[in-house]
């Protein structure tokens, strides 16, 4: 059957999913990039291959990119958002923020959650709830759009990376020409 007959999507990129990785228990989930995937389960598997090839990871979250409301401090300063009135449609949003220009592998990190009627309201609530340190960028994501890696799979998904020491640069130590002994084969 051709894609037209099955009514399947054309051969094109899948939806984009933002990926958040937690390095250890007690550490926040941090935005590490995005993957394209057909559904949440596929996105988690892609995220594991792309973003957890090495230690350390204990959990991954994925959220459809279109569920992420992102706004920078510059945008808030030049074009303030108008939150929808807080009403019956209130839902829970996970809040992520970035607070430093320091060199980093990760972008915004999870700081908590707020309840609001819409994403603009969630940003306003986040700014009130988490005023310090000043954020350079905010992301708010409806909690029910975030899918976490399965608890039961933590060991199977993340522990093998720890045993693959041959892909750690520290395994090779300092390599110098002329060292006849001590180099690993």
């Amino acid at each position, binding site marked *: 059957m051709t894609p037209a007959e099955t009514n399947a999507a054309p051969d094109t990129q899948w939806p984009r999913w933002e990926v958040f990785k937690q390095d250890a228990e007690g550490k926040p989930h941090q935005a590490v*990039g995005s993957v394209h995937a057909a559904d949440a389960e596929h996105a988690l598997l892609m995220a594991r291959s792309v973003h957890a090839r090495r230690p350390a990871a204990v959990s991954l979250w994925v959220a459809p990119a279109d569920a992420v409301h992102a706004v920078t401090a510059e945008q808030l300063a030049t074009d303030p958002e108008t939150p929808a009135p807080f009403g019956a449609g209130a839902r829970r949003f996970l809040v992520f923020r970035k607070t430093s220009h320091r060199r980093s*592998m990760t972008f915004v990190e999870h700081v908590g959650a707020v309840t609001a009627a819409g994403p603009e309201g969630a940003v306003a609530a986040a700014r009130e709830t988490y005023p310090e340190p000043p954020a*350079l960028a905010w992301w708010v994501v409806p909690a029910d759009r975030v899918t976490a890696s399965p608890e039961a799979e933590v060991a199977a998904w993340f522990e093998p990376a720890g045993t693959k020491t*041959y892909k750690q640069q520290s395994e090779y130590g300092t390599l110098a020409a002329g*060292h006849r002994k001590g180099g*690993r084969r």
Partner: protein
Amino acid sequence: MPPEAGRSVEDEERLEAFEARIAGGEKIEPGDWMPEAYRRQLVRMISQHAHSEIVGMLPEGAWITRAPSLRRKLILIAKVQDEAGHGQYLYHAAETLGVPREELIDALLEGRAKYSSVFNYPTLTWADVGMIGWLVDGAAIRNQLMLAQCSYGPYSRAMVRICAEETFHHKQGKEMVLLYARGSASQRAMAQDALERWWWPSLMMLGPHDSDSPNTPQLARWGIKTKTNDQVRREYVDEHVPELQGAGLTVPDPVLRFDEASGHWVHGTIDWGEFWRVVKGNGPVNAERLAARRSAHEEGRWVREAMAAYAARATGAAS
């Protein structure tokens, strides 16, 4: 570069504020205002970089089945898998600038996109795998350490992550070549042969001479590149020449010399004619590389169709 005539006073003010942010060491993030030329330059650089990671899997991937030991096979699989991941990090960074991933991949498959010239040379022996790790990844790391300082947040973050992983690529290659360089006569000859074929391409991959890099001043002003091609090339040469010589190998450049006054190595003239031939699609294996990418894409079509059908059914069932 935006035409001066089309610029409004407001644009000028925004540009000034933007440049002040960069001068102050701030990172520009998706959503922040940026000049169109900044966005365009980044898309150009990041997409070429992403394609290079993807095509970069091919020269070494061909040797996975022929690795001489289990350890070397595991290392090579991990390295090739890393290159795939690096391509994904970079496509993501490009997407934050509003370019769909699909558009970038189509450009590569249709032969409209550029990627690093160095991947259009063939890998003829197993020693090439080691030499690519030591020299090609060594040169790439030099460039990427510079780009990790980039003013655009998503590109900088991808580079920081890639540099951490590529240090493994560099070290495993160097380890392998050092081993062969002190091995049997035929192992030494194999290492020397690989050096002779990869040395000049590794110098070329750091890009045209500064006098042929018209974009560099603007890229430097906007904190995209913090060093010129020739500066990065000099760092690469200074790092690698003493180590190659220390290993007992001969760098294939008869006029290569250490300049006491400047404290740097001075290499011979790069064959820029060859560089441009390869960049323009006429290198030793350009056509083969693209054919391999297209065939991988076509052979994966049934998987993509199955995934899409499964997702459509799951969504249908849920609604």
